[in-house]
């Protein structure tokens, strides 16, 4: 089973890297962007085919390592 975990900074946390990317895109004259925030994507393959079990394991992975929940949120997508 394939899953994707997306980790993003909480909206209250400043993202200077996103700001720098935003500035560079504006410098390239890519129009119509109001803001950019950077995050991380993890593509994970799991054994078994039970979605509930997979979601539980991925939540544990996020809570214990993949995200620092003081400053980051995570979302889990299971294919």
């Amino acid at each position, binding site marked *: 089973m394939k899953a994707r975990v997306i980790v993003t900074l909480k909206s209250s*946390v*400043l993202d*200077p*890297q996103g700001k*720098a990317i935003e500035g560079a895109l504006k410098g390239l004259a890519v129009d119509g962007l109001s803001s950019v925030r950077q995050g991380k994507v993890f593509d994970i393959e799991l054994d078994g085919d039970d979605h509930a079990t997979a979601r539980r394991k991925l939540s544990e992975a996020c809570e*214990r*390592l*993949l995200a*620092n929940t*003081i*400053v980051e949120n995570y979302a889990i997508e299971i294919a």
Partner: protein
Amino acid sequence: MRAAIILFPGINREGDVARALRQATGAEPAIVWHAEHELPPGVDLVVLPGGFSYGDYLRCGAIAARAPIMRAVGDHAARGGLVLGVCNGFQILCEAGLLPGVLMRNSQLRFICKMQHVRVENAQTPFTRRYAPGQVVKFAIAHGEGNFIADDDTIRRIEAEGRVAFRYCDIEGRVGDDTSPNGAINSIAGVFNDRFNVLGLMPHPENLIDPLVGGTDGRALFASLAA
């Protein structure tokens, strides 16, 4: 004073820390590999040195914070044992939950490597008792992720409990919005845990122990620990 230095892959300041400890205590610190599960018997002080553990993959200090030895370091801290984390060591202690907050990318996005004045905010701890309260000292800083943040309640609690160890300041000890080189909230350069037996700081006191290489303002920290 028996000290142990934890060595994670990618750490590079362990020799500097060992030299500072040797100078202060007269004893050779133990070097403990991260894959160990126990500290040597009778250890009083555990030091997590600076460097780039695991190449700063995922988040600075995140992977080292989950290394096997960190359970023993946590148990040592829970027993009241002393733990010092410098630079990447500070990041590891935050990731391990032994200190509050997070060290984010410097607000100007640049790696900073320079001498920096800091003010001693609390001189009544095992780490700082050889300094005078409010003393301005000069340490080296060298980091890309030293921008300390925590939620508002945590910051209020840290400030109210006197848990700020050092604050970035100018040469006269003034602290303002413009004195934090990395954007750290309230110019916080180092914090204690709630029992004052764990200290994390971004500056490198271990590099200021010899007049030949910039000064000796770091000696008092190691002398405090050895006292």
